[in-house]
């Protein structure tokens, strides 16, 4: 049997989340004595990239009809190939749209947002995030097959090279119920959910004109930028940057929060970050209770100084 894994690409280029999902599938396969088959749709990247993380086989679907993303059509394509009883997806926007449709097509159980390897594979039981990061659930699948989506940055990318082989599969899936009429990809911006480091700011910054220093710090660190809910509600920053309970949940290695007091809704979205640094001029800000490191002081002095010091470290 093979553990199947959906290796997501964007415009043909594999996402970090795809490598993480392959790493996760390999770790399960290591437990169950299975092989790993990665499925990819119209990739341009080399399959070698997936062998590196443990894919024994890569099935490259060639289908011009799937050039545009459709959750339903992608689920149908994966359904035609994945004939094992464990299928792994990354918990990205696209993959987590496909997984529920595939679960119905296959009549499999679906466990989303998993953060750890399964505690058991028969029956399948695994720990997942729940309550927007305010708790965890141990979920048990009660069916012959199971699909999991792996929360981004939770398991990590782990090299474990296999001598893989590639198969090209020509499919012709009907993809008529949705049609992409415009696609806007902002180039050069780091994906918030994939970022290892995130620099985030809140109302303490006083206005959108002050975000330059946040971006400078993010640039020096190779980080993505984020913001608190009030900041996106008043339009200082786009809502795509809002992290928290009703925004994005993230799990970077380092989360730097500037001028954010740390409401429970904000913490929910960021408390699975591995290291949290809080910078706030209010020593009573509740966020300090959930931080690893804290600096009480004026962000307008601290952030530019910190940026210079990190620049010096990296030089």
């Amino acid at each position, binding site marked *: 049997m093979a553990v199947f894994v959906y290796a997501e690409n*964007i415009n043909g280029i594999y996402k970090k989340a795809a490598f993480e999902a392959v790493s996760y599938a390999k770790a399960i396969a290591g437990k169950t004595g299975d092989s790993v088959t990665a499925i990819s749709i119209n990739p341009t990247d080399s399959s070698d990239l997936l062998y590196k993380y443990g894919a024994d086989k890569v099935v490259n679907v060639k289908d011009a009809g799937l050039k545009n993303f*459709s*959750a*339903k059509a992608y*689920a149908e394509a994966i359904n035609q190939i994945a004939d094992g009883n464990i299928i792994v997806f990354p918990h990205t*926007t*696209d993959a987590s*749209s496909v*997984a*529920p*449709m595939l*679960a*119905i*097509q296959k009549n*499999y159980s*679906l*466990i*989303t947002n998993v953060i750890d390897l399964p505690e058991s594979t028969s029956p399948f*039981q695994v720990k997942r995030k*729940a*309550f927007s*990061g305010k*708790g965890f*659930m*141990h*979920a*048990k*699948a*009660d069916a012959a097959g199971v699909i999991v989506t792996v929360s981004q940055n939770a398991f990590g990318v782990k090299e474990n090279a296999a001598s893989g082989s590639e198969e090209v599969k020509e499919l012709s899936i009907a993809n008529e*119920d*949705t049609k*992409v*009429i*415009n*696609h*806007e*990809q*902002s180039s050069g*911006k780091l*994906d918030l959910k994939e970022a290892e*480091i995130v620099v985030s700011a809140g109302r303490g910054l006083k206005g959108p004109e002050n975000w330059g220093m946040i971006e400078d710090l993010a640039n020096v*660190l190779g980080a993505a930028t984020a913001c608190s809910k009030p900041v*996106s509600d008043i339009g200082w920053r786009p*809502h*795509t940057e*809002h992290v928290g*309970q*009703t925004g994005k949940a993230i799990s970077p290695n*380092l989360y730097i929060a500037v001028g954010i007091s740390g409401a*429970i809704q904000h913490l*929910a979205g960021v408390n699975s970050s591995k*290291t*949290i*640094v809080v910078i706030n001029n209010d020593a009573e800000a509740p966020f*300090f209770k959930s931080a*690893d*490191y804290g*600096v009480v*002081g004026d962000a307008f002095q601290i952030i530019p100084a910190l940026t210079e010091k*990190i620049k010096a470290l990296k030089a």
Partner: protein
Amino acid sequence: MKILVCISSVPDTTSKINFTADKSAFDKNGIQWVINPLDEFALTKAIKLQESQGATVTVVNVGDAGTEAVIRKALAIGANDAVRVNTEAKDSFSVAKEIARIAQDGSYDLVLAGKESIDYNGGAVPGMVAQLLNYAFVNAAVGLDVNGSEATAVREIEGGKETISVKLPAVVAGQKGLVDEKDLIIPNMRGIMSARTKPLNVVEPSNSEVKVEAVSFDSVAPRAAVKLVSADNLDELVRLLHEEAKVI
């Protein structure tokens, strides 16, 4: 046009999340219940389509009688009527089955929902409903217009957005951005009074199959006490991040 909006009753976003002593369930003591915030974006969008296109808006909830306060709030916001499937929501699959049945029986043109609920965060119900009905599915929508038998949706993608034309009937799962936060409707007295007389139909579930079971729950482990660094000594912060936490 007939719109079905799926709503979930969830703990208020300020809630501290506790579990029962044996860790087998969420502890509901002292919890305020609200419409799942992501569903509220979907509901407000539906009300806007009701105003601009004369659509009728039905809300559906799968839940026991305890969820009726939240359903009445949805009616006060402006939904025309409501259906409650009288069973405790157990997993995404069983909830999706009930919603799909209601959607099919009522021949809705558009099924709207939040992309996930902020309690169990399955994010699976809308996609499952779409597949059960064999409808088109757009997830993570941040924009939606309807024009006759077609809709135009904008969905968020990693690092950008995509505008899609969708043939109706369809399922669209929305999030913040589908409507602006400031456009969310706070029920007024007239809405609250009229909600009391709007139909809230209770139907029995058609299916009891569950595919995922919650075995137990854990709370988030507390972090060690914060290490405070003086604002005059940022070298120390850089050192700690570099040498101790090893994150830069």
